[in-house]
């Protein structure tokens, strides 16, 4: 029986081995001699040549290449080391990479033969507390030409790649969707390696060679630590690059690759016109000199609270808050642009009959207090709620379910014109960390005096918004952008002070169509802060309202969310997520 394309664990759930320096050195030793593998024939562009790369704030590298896979390197005039290498070309650009024997270091270099400008990446392991995470430092320079003055120009960091997205297929068969919604991070969907369910994010570099050619890197920080770099030709949609790191089974991946792709689209970016600067996120705090290889990396798994069920039960018993006053309550920052709540539910009674979950009976005392009970149970439970009418007849409301063993919270959209309801049922005590929210989706109907609900029709899960990019301004100074990368995940990008895309992360998500232009969606901050975010997005008014559900060391909290939105664009990606007759998505 053929296997599925899906991994046993998704990347954010893999307990990657903490490799020792010795283990890494042992695994690197053979490839330092042999050089990287390649599915495509290696280029002989350097064969028989000697070059000296001079960098501005880094080493001078003297190379002598023998054939297509042997070189000797002298760093800063020191003794020469013999190593294996692999080179590939893309138009005027020659790319090569090698590891230095006896070390955990290596280089990847990009040389534009038209200009003799060079960008060099020094790569090394064991430079971070997780040894397997590849570190990089970037040096800009040129290839020395005897008798010629050094060129003044350099390759430069840029935001000119920001907003682009590509499908790539490498010569080894690896297929990915890669999005560059930030000038400091990127998002990648592993179609062939992981089945294309989720998108993941990593810190990235974007460097301009010329208007057609750019260098991109990413490091899979918080995951395997694997480093990928490539030169891409935006017109030909071709790439040459390198992948270096250890996979989930701790096998070393070190290969150069050639790839071809498809342009998926371009979304807007929000820097001032004329601002083409790259690297918008400073590598070090203000006033501090960045260490070699330094950059800002979002490390949510490292910093999140990881609680047991007993700890969750205890903290929920002590501190549970629903819709605290906006100015001071937890999560208040995300409610700065919240619209006014509605009191329409006050005095109403109805039952929400879910297809595959217990029906919920409601009595709404006023605009902020309700009583609920599961159908058939005798006791009503009082809860604080808030409600917003996003579109006439459609109300979002949320409340916690006190007394439920998993501390459930409901975020509910009720459409009184259609008699339909969708509930995102958040809960705790999930398998990985008890304070990490899980979610169940309940579809159903409203039973209410004077309202006849449909018998078969329901709200439905949709992929209509997959590929869209939508910015959210929650409050002054707090703006992000959602990129709906797959039908099952979204990523969020945080803007910098210059409105460049900065740090980015992602999580599982689903989207429900409520009406034309009105979508109810959730995302889970898995291996992050554990939050369940739910929003009702109105593409007519470009506003969202929502409910956040989070448990941490400060307790369980349900809070309001509200933002002004802007449509930033759309990628053509839905076709990549259709299940094929032969299985899988790639």
């Amino acid at each position: 029986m053929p296997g599925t394309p899906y991994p046993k664990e998704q990347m954010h759930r893999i307990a990657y081995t903490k490799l020792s320096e010795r283990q890494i050195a042992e695994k690197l030793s053979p490839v330092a001699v042999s050089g990287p593998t390649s599915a495509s024939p290696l280029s002989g562009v350097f064969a028989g040549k000697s070059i000296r790369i001079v960098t501005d704030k880094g080493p001078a590298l003297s190379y002598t290449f023998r054939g297509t896979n042997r070189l000797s390197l002298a760093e800063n005039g020191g003794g020469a080391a013999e190593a294996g290498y692999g080179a590939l070309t893309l138009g005027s650009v020659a790319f090569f990479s090698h590891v230095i024997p006896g070390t955990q270091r290596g280089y990847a270099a990009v040389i534009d033969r038209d200009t003799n400008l060079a960008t060099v990446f020094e790569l090394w392991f064991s430079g971070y507390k997780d040894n397997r995470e590849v570190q990089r430092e970037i040096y800009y320079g040129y290839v020395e030409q005897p008798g010629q003055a050094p060129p003044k120009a350099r390759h430069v960091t840029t935001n000119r790649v920001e907003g682009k997205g590509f499908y790539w297929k490498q010569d080894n068969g690896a297929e990915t969707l890669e999005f560059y919604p930030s000038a400091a991070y990127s998002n990648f969907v592993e179609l062939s390696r992981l089945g294309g369910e989720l998108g993941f994010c990593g810190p990235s570099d974007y460097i301009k060679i010329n208007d057609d050619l750019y260098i991109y890197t990413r490091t899979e920080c918080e995951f395997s630590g694997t480093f990928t770099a490539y030169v891409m030709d935006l017109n030909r949609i071709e790439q040459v690059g390198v992948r270096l790191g250890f996979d989930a089974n701790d096998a070393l991946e070190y290969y150069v690759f050639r790839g071809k792709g498809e342009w998926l689209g371009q979304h807007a970016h929000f820097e001032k016109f004329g601002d083409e600067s790259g690297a918008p996120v400073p590598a070090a705090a203000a006033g501090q000199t960045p260490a070699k290889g330094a950059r800002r990396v979002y490390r949510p798994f490292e910093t999140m609270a990881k609680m047991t069920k007993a700890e969750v039960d205890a903290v929920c018993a002590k501190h549970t808050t629903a819709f605290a006053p906006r100015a001071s309550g937890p999560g208040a920052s995300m409610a700065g642009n919240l619209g006014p709540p509605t009191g329409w539910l006050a005095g109403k009674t109805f039952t929400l009959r879910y297809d595959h979950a217990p029906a919920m009976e409601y009595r709404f005392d006023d605009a902020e207090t309700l009583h609920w009970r599961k159908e058939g149970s005798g006791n009503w439970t009082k809860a604080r709620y808030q409600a917003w009418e996003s579109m006439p007849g459609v109300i979002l409301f949320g409340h916690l379910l006190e007394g439920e063993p998993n501390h459930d919270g409901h975020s509910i959209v009720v459409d009184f014109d259609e008699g339909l309801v969708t509930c995102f049922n958040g809960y705790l005590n999930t398998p990985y960390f008890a304070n990490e929210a899980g979610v169940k989706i309940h579809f159903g109907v409203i039973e209410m005096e004077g309202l006849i609900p449909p018998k078969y029709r329901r709200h439905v899960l949709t992929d209509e918004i997959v590929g869209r990019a939508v910015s959210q301004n929650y409050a002054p100074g707090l703006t992000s952008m959602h990129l709906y990368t797959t039908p099952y995940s979204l990523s969020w990008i945080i803007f910098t002070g210059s409105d460049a895309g900065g740090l980015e992360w992602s999580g599982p998500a689903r989207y429900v169509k409520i009406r034309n232009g009105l979508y109810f969606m959730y995302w889970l901050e898995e291996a992050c802060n554990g939050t369940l975010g739910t929003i009702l997005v109105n593409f007519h008014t470009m506003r969202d309202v929502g409910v956040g559900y989070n448990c941490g060391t400060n307790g369980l909290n349900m809070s309001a969310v509200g933002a002004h939105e802007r449509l930033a664009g759309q990628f053509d990606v839905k076709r990549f997520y259709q299940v094929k007759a032969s299985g899988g998505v790639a």
Partner: protein
Amino acid sequence: MTTKTDSTRRSFLKGGALLAVPLASAVPAAVMADDGLKARLARLEDGAAIRELHQAWLRQINRGTNTGAGDTAALFATLQGAAFDQGVRSIAPDHAGQPDAIEVAADGKSATGRFQCLVGIETAIAQDCTLAQMAHAQGGGFVRRTERCVLNVEYVKASGAWAIARVEFAPA
């Protein structure tokens, strides 16, 4: 005495010219006149010293060193006086406002300054959600705004040198 000052070269020359007139006519003057001249010279020197002190403080604020009282403490008479809103990131003269005014007390031991200015203020966003935490992690997470303010500053002279005693921002 109130000395209205601004930072233009013309006003500096004007001050110098006023000073020059009594000097030119002082040759036959009595001791009283000489004392008055000395007093006026002292006041002018005090004014200049306070302006220089004010400029030195502004330079430190605008260099982005307002990260704690210790950074500007050397300009202040006391550490308590040096402590003020750490959200202030820049102070620039408000050229649409009234001229700067420095008033030195008759005994020459204290002075006040009143400066209309544009104050750049940075307010940290509470790290109460993932987005805010990420904004801080990338070196942001602040709301910046500019406010028109009147800067009321008190100065004291101790051991022959002027120091800032207290700074107060008031709405313009």
